[in-house]
């Protein structure tokens, strides 16, 4: 399996804070879309910042396209497209001016593609960025990320705050991007319904630690949430579940193999899992 991005044992501690990234490891297979999920403050943005070298990790190795990513490797950065959860660009620039700037910076800037994307996404080309709505700004940033020969897109909350219509347009773009099997996307998102639609893999992070990396289809169709009464839960073996949480009068238990579990415990109801429920269980459950 070829990986576009490999994060190994990434750790970072902010001085004076309890928060840290603790041995974060995961890898994005080439040709796939990986969703990066976690509650606010879990470490998604910090991880992404470390991957992109805007923060210096205390330890760990980041490999992109199989090579270690350092500040000096400007060649690799030509092939990484980034969208941060911010305005990203100088506010007084217009899309056109931004294009002329990027033409001089990126080795493989594709003006025609950029123009096409801007038109398709209906981003006005001569309006200053500060006069664009947030949705427009994100669309512009995405168009730019697509237009310089990137093979890996790293997106931090690219659809948050956008209305469903715009979100759908963006998801379409992402799927188009991975039509080329050498292209991959790592996107962090709260909007789990988006990920349920287009993600191939999901990685969960909580309190700076990776909880789980799994194929999305496995999470939705193989994993399950067992609803147990106390005695039923006590009777379970720890190896049978990943997390459990008391909720009201029942105990919700995350099991990795719904079929097998049901076979072994015919008296327990097992529901299909959603990404949201899995995340809540991982975050709030005891492990």
């Amino acid at each position, binding site marked *: 399996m070829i990986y576009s991005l490999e994060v190994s044992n990434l750790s970072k501690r902010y001085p004076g804070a309890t928060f840290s990234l603790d041995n974060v490891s995961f890898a994005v297979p080439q040709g796939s879309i990986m969703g990066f999920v976690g509650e606010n403050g879990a470490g998604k943005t910090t991880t992404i910042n470390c991957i992109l070298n805007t*923060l210096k990790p205390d330890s760990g190795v980041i490999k992109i396209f199989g090579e270690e990513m350092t500040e000096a490797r400007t*060649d690799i*950065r030509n092939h990484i497209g980034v969208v941060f959860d911010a305005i990203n660009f*100088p506010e007084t620039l217009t899309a056109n001016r931004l294009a002329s*700037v990027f*033409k001089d910076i990126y080795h493989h800037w594709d003006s025609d593609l950029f123009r096409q994307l801007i038109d398709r996404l209906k981003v006005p080309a001569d309006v200053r960025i500060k006069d664009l709505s947030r949705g427009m700004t994100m669309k512009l940033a995405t168009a730019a990320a697509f237009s310089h020969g990137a093979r890996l897109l790293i997106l931090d909350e690219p659809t948050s705050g956008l209305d469903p219509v715009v979100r759908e347009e963006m998801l379409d773009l992402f799927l188009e991007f991975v039509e080329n099997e050498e292209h991959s996307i790592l996107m962090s998102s709260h909007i789990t319904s988006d990920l349920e639609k287009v993600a191939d893999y999901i990685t969960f992070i909580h309190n700076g630690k990776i909880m789980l990396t799994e194929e999305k289809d496995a999470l939705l169709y193989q994993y399950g949430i067992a609803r147990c009464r106390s005695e039923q839960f006590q009777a379970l073996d720890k190896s049978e579940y990943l997390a459990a949480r008391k909720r009201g009068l029942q105990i919700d238990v995350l099991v990795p193999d719904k079929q097998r579990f049901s076979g072994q415990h015919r008296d327990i109801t097992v529901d299909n899992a959603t990404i949201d429920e899995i995340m809540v269980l991982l975050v709030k459950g005891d492990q």
Partner: protein
Amino acid sequence: MRGLVRNNIYSMASNIQLSFIIAAVMALVPIVFREDMLLSMILAVQIFIFVVNTGTSLRVDETSKWSKFELTLPVRRHTIVRAKYVTFVLLILMGILTSLLTLAVCSALGMSIDPVMVTYSYGFGLTLAITSTALMYPVMLKIGTEKNEMIVFFSGFAAVGIMLLLAAILAPFTEGMQIRHPLVGTVSTCTAIVLFIISYFVSVRIHRKKEFR
């Protein structure tokens, strides 16, 4: 790097336009009042006007997170800093150009131009502009751009202070402390340029270690 400089100019475009307008308005003063002293002051300030707004630009870069996005571009960190300093030089050149135009207009209108006064004006203006830029940028890199107006203000102050200091040091050569002496003007400008170069290297170091959230 060309792209980065182009970007810097674009993002400061409205500030630059404003500076040109202010400089033009300022140029009217000596023309209307025909006062040499005023001309000397105006020439100096016209150069400084162009770098005053850099603080605001840098602030906006920070809030929009452009300064973080820049790091994901296929450029080295020191190239980013270099592009900033090149932009500063361009801004100062614009200031010089404007003041030269003012000078030319005044001369064409028949005002008497005292070469000593002109040398002094440029010495003071360049020192002020170059020194305050040299001080301002690394400070903002280090402590952030929130207090950018204050930093610009204090940098300007420090620039004047440096000139006075040099005038005092050179007193034995200039028959007493004389700010307007050409020697003081020349030495100040050279000092300013040296500070500018040192500032570049300091900034590169600071930027290299800086973390952007």
